[in-house]
C-alpha cells in the first residue's frame, strides 16, 4: 500500500467520490488549476473538468449558499473554504439553512453537502489562518462536524461525509496535512461517522482529543507509558454528534480523564465532554476531569503560537496529576 500524507488522502477521497458519483462537485477559491492553497484538489480539474471542479468568485457566503442550492437539487457539493478564519461568512448558511433544511421542510428537501476547511494553528500563517472554532459548529443542531487525525481517517471519513445524506463540516488539521503519513488503500471504503476511534488502549487514564492535537496526545501517552502509566487515547473524530458511549465506556474503565484541544478553553468542546462525564460517570471518577486547552486569547501569530497550543508536557503533567489524585 502506498504511503500518503493527510492532504493527499483528502485528494484521493475527493477523486474517488467524483469518480463514483457524477453528482459530486468540488467548488471553492483556487480549487481548479491551482489545486487549492494546500493542494487538496490538485489534478481534479484536469480529470473532471471545470464544471465539476469549480473556481468560485472570492465569496465564502456564496460558496456555502451555492452548496445548499445544489444539495437541495440532489447534488453532492463539496465546498472548500481556504482557512477556517474565513469560514465565518458561511455560518449564516450553516445555521439558518444547511443544518435545518431537512427539519424545516419535514424531509421534503435535504442538504447533503460537505464544507471542508483547514483547521488549527501551527503552520506559522498570518492572522486569521489558525482558527479552531469547532465548538461553535458543534453547537449547531442538524450538522455533522468531523475532524480526521490521520491519512487513513481523512480518506475514510471524507468519503463517509460526502455520502452522508446530511450536511457535514469537515475540518482538516492543517498542522499535520503533510506531517502525518500513512498507508491508505484507495479502495473506496468509508469509515463510520459519529464513532470515536480508540487509538491506544490503557487502564489508568483516558486522553481524549481530535485533529492535530492527537500528535501531542499520543506522544504524551508514550511518555506516560515510560512512567508505567497506561493511557487510553481516544480520537473523537466526529464532534457532532459525538460518540458518548465510547467516552463513557473508557471512563468506566480508567476513572480518569484528560481532554486535550487546541481551541480556547471557555465554552470549548472539552467542556461538553466534561459535563457529560460529570452527569453520567461521576461515580466512576477517581480524579477531577482535566482540560488541557488553548488559552482564552486570540490565537497569536507565529512567534507565540506554539505557546498557545497544548504541549506534550502540559498533557503529561495533567495526566500525572489525575493519576496521583486520591
Amino acid at each position: 500500500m502506498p504511503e500518503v500524507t493527510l492532504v493527499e488522502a483528502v485528494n484521493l477521497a475527493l477523486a474517488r467520490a467524483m469518480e463514483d458519483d457524477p453528482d459530486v462537485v468540488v467548488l471553492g477559491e483556487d480549487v481548479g488549476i491551482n489545486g487549492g492553497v494546500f493542494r487538496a484538489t490538485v489534478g481534479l480539474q484536469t480529470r473532471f473538468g471545470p464544471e465539476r471542479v469549480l473556481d468560485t468568485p472570492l465569496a465564502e457566503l456564496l460558496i456555502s449558499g451555492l452548496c445548499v442550492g445544489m444539495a437541495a437539487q440532489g447534488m453532492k457539493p463539496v465546498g472548500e473554504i481556504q482557512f477556517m478564519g474565513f469560514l465565518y461568512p458561511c455560518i449564516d448558511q450553516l445555521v439558518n439553512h444547511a443544518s435545518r433544511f431537512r427539519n424545516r421542510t419535514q424531509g421534503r428537501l435535504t442538504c447533503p453537502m460537505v464544507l471542508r476547511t483547514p483547521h488549527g494553528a501551527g503552520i506559522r500563517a498570518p492572522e486569521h489562518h489558525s482558527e479552531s472554532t469547532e465548538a461553535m459548529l458543534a453547537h449547531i443542531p442538524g450538522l455533522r462536524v468531523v475532524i480526521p487525525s490521520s491519512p487513513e481517517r481523512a480518506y475514510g471519513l471524507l468519503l463517509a461525509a460526502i455520502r452522508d445524506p446530511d450536511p457535514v463540516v469537515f475540518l482538516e488539521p492543517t498542522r499535520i496535512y503533510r506531517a502525518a503519513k500513512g498507508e491508505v488503500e484507495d479502495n473506496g471504503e468509508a469509515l463510520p461517522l459519529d464513532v470515536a476511534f480508540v487509538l491506544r488502549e490503557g487502564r489508568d487514564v483516558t486522553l481524549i482529543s481530535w485533529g492535530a492535537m492527537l500528535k501531542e496526545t499520543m506522544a504524551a501517552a508514550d511518555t506516560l507509558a515510560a512512567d508505567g502509566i497506561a493511557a487510553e487515547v481516544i480520537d473523537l473524530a466526529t464532534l457532532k454528534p459525538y460518540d458518548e458511549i465510547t467516552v463513557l465506556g473508557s471512563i468506566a474503565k480508567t476513572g480518569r480523564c484528560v481532554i486535550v484541544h487546541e481551541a480556547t478553553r471557555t465554552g470549548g468542546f472539552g467542556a461538553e465532554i466534561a459535563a457529560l462525564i460529570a452527569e453520567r460517570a461521576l461515580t466512576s471518577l477517581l480524579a477531577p476531569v482535566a482540560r488541557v486547552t488553548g488559552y482564552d486569547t486570540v490565537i497569536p501569530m507565529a512567534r507565540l503560537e506554539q505557546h498557545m497550543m497544548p504541549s506534550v508536557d502540559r498533557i503529561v503533567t495533567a495526566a500525572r496529576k489525575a493519576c496521583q489524585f486520591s
Partner: protein
Amino acid sequence: MASKKLSGGGLPVIARFEVRHRNYLAPDGSINRPLPAFASDTNLLTALYRAMLLLRNFDRKAVALQRTGRLGTYAVSLGQEAVSVGVASAMREEDVLLPSYRDNGALIWRGVKLEEILLFWGGDERGNCFSGPVEDFPFCVPVGSQAPHAAGVAYAFKLRKQPRVAVCMFGDGATSKGDVYEAMNFAGVHKLPVVFVATNNQWAISVPLRLQTGCETLAQKAVAAGFIGEQVDGSDVVAMRAAAEDAIAAAREGRGPRFIEAVTYRLGDHTTSDDALRYRSADEVQARWKEEPIARLRNYLVSQKMWSKAEEEQLAAECHERVEAAVECYLATEPRRPETMFDHLYAELPETYAAQRRQLAGEGDA
C-alpha cells in the same frame, strides 16, 4: 450599450448602461401601450385577477386570525399582489421558486394549499412540507439568504443540462445584502438560468428606499453582475407577467440571468407586529391606494367587457368559501407530538439524541 466615443473631458467612454422601465396598464386601468400577446387571452387575465383577489382575501383573514390569537406573526401582500402572482404565472411547473416570506401569491399560484401557509405562520413546520412543486424552496426568513441557493439550483440545472429556471424573490432591503450581490455576480459569471426578482415596495420595515441605497434604481445593480436589470411597474400584473416571461424565457434558452425590480408599494403594515403609522403618513398610503394592482386590472377587464359584476360577486363568494375552508382545515390540524421535533433533524437520528427524543416522548429521562 457599450460605446467608445470621446466624452467632454477627453477620456474615452468605455461603457454605457441603461435601465428600462416597463408598464402597460395605467393606474386607472387604461393602457399606455399595446399589451403583450398573452393579454388577449381572457382566461389568463381573469386567472391573474382571481389569484390576486384570493390573495387579498386570504391576507385579510390571516390578519384577523392573528388578531384573535389563532395565528402567529403574518406578512401581508396588500398592494403588491401583482408581483408574486405575475411572476409565478410565467413559471413552468418544473422551474424552482425560491420565495421570500412575503411571496404567498407565488406559492398559491404554484399549488401550495392555503391551509399549509396558515400552518407555517401558525408555527408548524409541516406548512413547509407543502403541496406544489416538490423542489420549490420554503419561505426564506433571513433576508436575502436564499439568493445563493438560487444560484446553486441554477448551477445544478446547467450542469445537468436541464431546461429549467430558478426564480428567486426578495425585497428591496435584501438588495443591500452581500448575499444577493454574491449570488448575482456568480450567476453572471456562469450565465446561469436564474431570474432574480426584487419587490421594491419602498420600505424595509421602517427604512425607506432612499436610506437603503444611493442608487437611482435597484435594477441597475444587475449591471455590476454583468446582466440586464429591468424596472417594472410592480402594480401592473400585465407588466410583471410580461417581464417575468421574457426573463424566464431568456434564462431557459441559455441567455443567462436577469434581474427584475418590481416597483410597487406596501399598503399594509410590514407584518402583524408592525405599526406603519410610526414611520409613514396615512396621506402617503392613501395616495398610493390609487395605484393598487387589483382595481387597476379590474378597471381594464371591465372596460374590455372581460369581466362583469356578476362574475365579481361570484368570485367574492368563491374566495370566501376557499379561505374559510382552509381556516377550518388549519384550525382542525392537531399539533405534532413534541418528540417529532427530532424526526427530521437528520436522515437517521443519532443515538445520542434518541435519548432526548425519548424524554420528550415521556419515555424516561435523558
